[in-house]
């Protein structure tokens, strides 16, 4: 049978952003896939060279609309590594709390978007209902509902408001029963499982070689979580299990994210309990970064566990208040690059299911 190319996007409900997927189909079966990126390229790497170190959090906040805090945290962690800034202990715990809060928000956003991909519109309604509760908490904290601008080099913008952590714990208590509803809605739903089980399989060996990270890698059976294995901030002092599945299909990726919501609530509770009551929330940071000697010194690296995988910033200093080069490693970028492996051999109707399950964010991908 004759094969033909089908173009999906750049504006298509499947894409969750602005990008284009070209697939070659033989009847219903996909034989080749070619993602076409760059529709949302805003040259963030170039812009960061033009602004001083503290101002660049404005751009890093806008890398991903679903998890601005983790991106800003990755940037400030790289700059702290570059400048040698020591973050106070209370600030390290506060960062863990806001990062996990951000992870819950991001995963709920993904859950609410993945349901409609499968025709399960109830997931969108349920997901955004619980997300709203957490959004209220982060709005109390930062004053914003998007692009929070809360991370600073050396710490955070301001301390938690009085009673905020208690209200956050109450929100967590309200949230956990709803999580059981999600599980019942999806895990006991035979249509949902028929659509996702055995679809878009990514073997562990391929996943590692293709550079896939985060929940997508853990769904393929590689038990690597940067928060446990390469801890940053206060994660090393907390005790929580990794969420790992073995199948590597869409259902495994779904289940890993769903259980990570539970894991994040556990980390939140633990971090709030262990956080020192008193202490500084920000350390003084120098204005100028060191100069890179063009061999090894004068560079800063941060690898963190973003909601979508391993985020990384590589910052090179030039001895004044401007960075010489900022490089962003976006986890969704490499995951979309690996998506042809999942797509080839599937049917056209499975494209939204597979691409929804990898949880992409085009803002960070196109930089």
């Amino acid at each position: 049978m004759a094969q033909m190319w089908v173009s999906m996007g750049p504006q298509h409900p499947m894409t969750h952003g602005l990008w284009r997927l070209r697939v070659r189909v033989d009847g219903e079966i996909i034989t080749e896939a070619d993602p076409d990126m760059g529709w949302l390229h805003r040259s963030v790497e170039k812009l960061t060279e033009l602004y001083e170190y503290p101002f660049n959090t404005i751009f890093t906040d806008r890398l991903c609309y679903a998890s601005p805090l983790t991106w800003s945290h990755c940037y400030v962690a790289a700059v702290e590594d570059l400048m040698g800034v020591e973050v106070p202990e209370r600030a390290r715990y506060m960062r863990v709390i806001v990062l996990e809060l951000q992870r819950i928000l991001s995963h709920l956003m993904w859950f609410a978007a993945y349901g409609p991909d499968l025709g399960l519109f109830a997931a969108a309604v349920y997901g955004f209902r619980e997300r709203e509760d957490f959004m209220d908490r982060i709005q109390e904290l930062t004053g914003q509902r998007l692009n929070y601008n809360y991370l600073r080099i050396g710490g955070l913008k301001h301390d938690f408001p009085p009673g905020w952590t208690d209200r956050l714990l109450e929100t967590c208590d309200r949230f956990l029963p709803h999580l059981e509803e999600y599980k019942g809605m999806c895990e006991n739903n035979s249509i949902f499982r028929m659509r996702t089980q055995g679809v878009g399989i990514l073997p562990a060996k391929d996943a590692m070689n293709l550079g896939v990270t985060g929940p997508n890698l853990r769904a393929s059976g590689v038990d690597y979580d940067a928060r446990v294995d390469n801890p940053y901030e206060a994660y090393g002092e907390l005790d929580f299990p990794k969420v790992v599945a073995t199948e590597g299909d869409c259902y495994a990726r779904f289940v890993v994210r769903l259980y990570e919501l539970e894991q994040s609530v556990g980390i939140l509770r633990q971090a709030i309990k262990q956080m020192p009551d008193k202490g500084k929330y920000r350390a003084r940071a120098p204005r100028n970064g060191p100069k890179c000697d063009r061999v090894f010194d004068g560079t800063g690296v941060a690898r963190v566990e973003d909601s979508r995988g391993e985020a990384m910033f590589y910052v090179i200093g030039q001895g004044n208040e401007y960075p010489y080069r900022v490089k962003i490693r976006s986890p969704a970028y490499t995951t979309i690059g690996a998506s042809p492996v999942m797509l080839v051999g599937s049917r056209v109707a499975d494209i939204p299911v597979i691409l929804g399950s990898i949880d992409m964010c085009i803002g960070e991908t196109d930089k």
Partner: protein
Amino acid sequence: MAGGRKVVAKRRVTTSAASPDPGHLGARHSSKSGVAGSGGDSSPEVLLEELEELLPSVILRSAVRLQKHELRIKVGRDDLVRVCTLLRDNLSLEHCTLITPVDWVTHWSCVYHLFSYSRRPLNLEIIVDLPRAEPWVDSITPLYAGANWHEREAYDLMGIDFRGHPDQRRILNPDWWEGHPLRKDYTWDMEPHKIGGFVPLFEIKGGESGGNTNL
């Protein structure tokens, strides 16, 4: 139904305590428990010794950052693929995290960040210097499939030529774009590029002084 849910949860999701040891990871270094810095295996100093033993006189400079479990080495352009092959096949650095091209005006650099899952959290930074006149380096996409898009991006934004890359096209900019925007000598004061066939819906009145933009 409730029983079914339990079985699913048990079969599908495991916590780290009961997680299956991934047997497909590198044969030489079996997967260790994921505690940071737990053994000599994940030490960057051990990796440096192994590299110096297997490939003598390839490493031009080296530095170790124990706190970050990081080894940094500098190698020549011609040795890169040889080093990466050895790292992937024998020293179990399975993951190519990032490729960063840097414009130093006098010359170019390519910085490779590799990571090991079976010797976690060991990571490696490889710096390769390229002469100003010849910005090319051998592609490592045949070794690490994940390097594909990083190399395409480096070609698109910095103009580094990756020899042997299977599909070297622009990725973030359109195909007809001229120049490489992240280069330090890229000119900014040019006419903004427009997408072909674009017709403005309306014109802002009031001339250059601002005027009424509430259209």
